[in-house]
C-alpha cells in the first residue's frame, strides 16, 4: 500500500528544489485553468495536501477515457499517478489481476473508508438485475453501490458515467444509466466528453488534491472552469459565424478558407467543453481545427439528438406531415367553400322581395 504523506514532503524527499516546485505549481495552475498568478496559493495548499487514495471502476465503457487519461501531457501521467494520487485500483492499469486485484480494492475501501475518491467510467446497466456487465462475478450496479458507500466524492469520467452515453442510446437494450441516477447521497462531478479532454480529468484531480475540495460545478455537475463556455463562444472560427461566412460542404472554398461549420451541423453552439482552448494531443488542435464540426459529445443525449450533419437551425427530422397537412388544408378549404356557397344559395333562394305590403 502506498504511503499517504503530503505531496510537499514527498517532493523534498526526492530532492526537488523550491524553484522546481514553483514551476510544478505554475503548470498546475495552467492545468486547472486558474489565473497564472495563483501558483503561490497552489504551493501553499499543496504543502498541506495528502495524496488521496483513488479507486477507479470501469463499467460499460470502451476504455477510451482511460486511453485519453494515459495520453495526458501535463503533468506527465506518471507523476500524476505515482506522486499526486495513490491509484489503488484500476483494472486496466494495475499490475495485479484476479483475486489480488479485487483484494486491493477491498483493502483500499476499508483502509480509507470515507476518504477515498471514486472514479467511474462507463454507464451502469440496470435491466434484468444488471447482469449485462459484471466484474469478478459482481454486477456493476452492486459494485458501484458498494464502492460509493465509503467514497468522499465520485468523479464520473466520460459521458457514459456522467450521462449514460452511447450504451444509453435509444433503444438502450441494457437499461444503462449514469452514476448520478443510482448514487444520490454523494457529491458527484461529471467530467463529460467522449472521451473527456485528458487535461480536464487531471485538472479536476489536481484541484481536489490541491484544495481538498471539488471545483465549482454547473447545472449538470460539470466543473465550470472547463465547461463554463460553449465551444462556439471560444471557437477561433466564431468571427466567421458573426460575419455570415459559412462552409457549405466539406470541400468547398469556404471549408478551405476555414469558415464556420455551423451549416454542416456543428453543435458548437449547444456544447459546453474546453476543446477550443485546451485543445487535444498536447495542443495540436481540436475537431473544428481539423475541419469537422463539433458532435456535442459532452452533452447529455448527444447520441439521440438528431444528425451530426444537420445544422442546429434545420429540422432534425423530415417534415413528414407537411404534404398531408397541405392536402387536408385543401380539402378543408374546398369543403368550407362548398358549405359557404350552399349557404349563399340557400339565402338567395329564401330571399323574398320586400313589397309595400310588408312595410305597412
Amino acid at each position, binding site marked *: 500500500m502506498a504511503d499517504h504523506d503530503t505531496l510537499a514532503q514527498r517532493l523534498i524527499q526526492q530532492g526537488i528544489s523550491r524553484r522546481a516546485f514553483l514551476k510544478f505549481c505554475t503548470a498546475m495552475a495552467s492545468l486547472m485553468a486558474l489565473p497564472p498568478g495563483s501558483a503561490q496559493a497552489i504551493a501553499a495548499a499543496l504543502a498541506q495536501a495528502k495524496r488521496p487514495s483513488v479507486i477507479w471502476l470501469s463499467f460499460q465503457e470502451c476504455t477510451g477515457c482511460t486511453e485519453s487519461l494515459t495520453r495526458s501531457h501535463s503533468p506527465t501521467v506518471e507523476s500524476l499517478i505515482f506522486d499526486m494520487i495513490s491509484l489503488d485500483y484500476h483494472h486496466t492499469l494495475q499490475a495485479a489481476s484476479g483475486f489480488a486485484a479485487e483484494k486491493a480494492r477491498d483493502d483500499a475501501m476499508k483502509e480509507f473508508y470515507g476518504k477515498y475518491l471514486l472514479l467511474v467510467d462507463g454507464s451502469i446497466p440496470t435491466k434484468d438485475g444488471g447482469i449485462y456487465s459484471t466484474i469478478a462475478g459482481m454486477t456493476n450496479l452492486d459494485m458501484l453501490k458498494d464502492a460509493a458507500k465509503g467514497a468522499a466524492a465520485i468523479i464520473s469520467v466520460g459521458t457514459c458515467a456522467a450521462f449514460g452515453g452511447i450504451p444509453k442510446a435509444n433503444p438502450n437494450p441494457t437499461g444503462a444509466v449514469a452514476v448520478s441516477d443510482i448514487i444520490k447521497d454523494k457529491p458527484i462531478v461529471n467530467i463529460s466528453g467522449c472521451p473527456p479532454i485528458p487535461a480536464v480529468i487531471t485538472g479536476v484531480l489536481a484541484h481536489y488534491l490541491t484544495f481538498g475540495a471539488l471545483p465549482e460545478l454547473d447545472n449538470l455537475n460539470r466543473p465550470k472552469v472547463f465547461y463554463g463556455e460553449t465551444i462556439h463562444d471560444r471557437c477561433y472560427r466564431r468571427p466567421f459565424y458573426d460575419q455570415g461566412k459559412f462552409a457549405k460542404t466539406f470541400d468547398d472554398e469556404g471549408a478551405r478558407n476555414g469558415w464556420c461549420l455551423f451549416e454542416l451541423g456543428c453543435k458548437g453552439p449547444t456544447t459546453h467543453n474546453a476543446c477550443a482552448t485546451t485543445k487535444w494531443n498536447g495542443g495540436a488542435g481540436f475537431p473544428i481545427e481539423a475541419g469537422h464540426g463539433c458532435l456535442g459529445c459532452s452533452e447529455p443525449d448527444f447520441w439521440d439528438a438528431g444528425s451530426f450533419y444537420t445544422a442546429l437551425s434545420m429540422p432534425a427530422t423530415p417534415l413528414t406531415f407537411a404534404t398531408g397537412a397541405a392536402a387536408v388544408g385543401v380539402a378543408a378549404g374546398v369543403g368550407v367553400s362548398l358549405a359557404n*356557397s350552399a349557404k349563399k344559395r340557400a339565402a338567395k333562394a329564401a330571399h323574398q322581395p320586400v313589397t309595400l305590403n310588408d312595410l305597412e
Partner: protein
Amino acid sequence: MSEMIFLAWVRGMGLNIAIGIFLLGTIWRLIEIYTLGRKQDVAAPRHRSGASGWHTMFRRSLPIPGIMQRSPVSYIGGYIFHIGLAIVVFLFAPHIKLIQSLVGLSWPGLPSQLIDAATVVTLAAMLVMLFDRINKPVKRFLSTFEDYFTWALTFLPVLTGYMAVKHLALPYATMLAIHILSVELLLIVLPFSKLFHAITVFGSRWYNGDINGRRGVPV
C-alpha cells in the same frame, strides 16, 4: 428529459406539427377567402382599373394625412417593428439556413452585430406599442384578448431568440429550444388569427385598389 432531447423534439416532431398546422390553416383560409367571392358587379366599370391595385399596395404603406399628429407612436412604432421583424426573421444566417432547408431558396445574411441591433430596436418598439395600447383609453377600449395574445406570440420569439444568442437566463440549448417552440406556437396560431395579415396584406390591398379603380376612383 434532457435539454438536447427537448431541442431535438422541437426541431423534429414539434416543427413537423407546427408547419403542418400552418400549411393546413393557410391553404384552407386562402381557398375559403378566394371562393367566398363578391356579389356580381353588374354595373359597367366607370374606369379601367389599370394599375390601381398595384398603386394601392404601395400607397397604403404611406402615412395618411394627419396620422402623424394623431397617432405617431402607433405609426412610427408599427413601421419600426415590422421592418425590424423582417430583418431579424429573413436576414439572420441560421434563419436563412432553415428557409433554405424547407423551400430551397437562400440569400446572403447580415452580420450578427446588425441582427443584434435590429432585435433590440424591434423589442423596444413592440414594448412602446404595447404601453401605448394600454395607456391610451380609446386603444385600450378597442383592444381584445386577441390583440394582446398575438402581441405576446410575436414578441416571445424575438425575445427568446435574443436571449438564446446572448446566453441570458438559461443555457443556450434550452433557450434555443424555447425559442423554436415559441415560433411554432406563432406558426400554429397565425392562420387562425389577425396575424394572417402577414399573408393576405398585399392581396387585399390589391383587391381594394382594383375595385376602387373600377368604380371610378383609381389611385
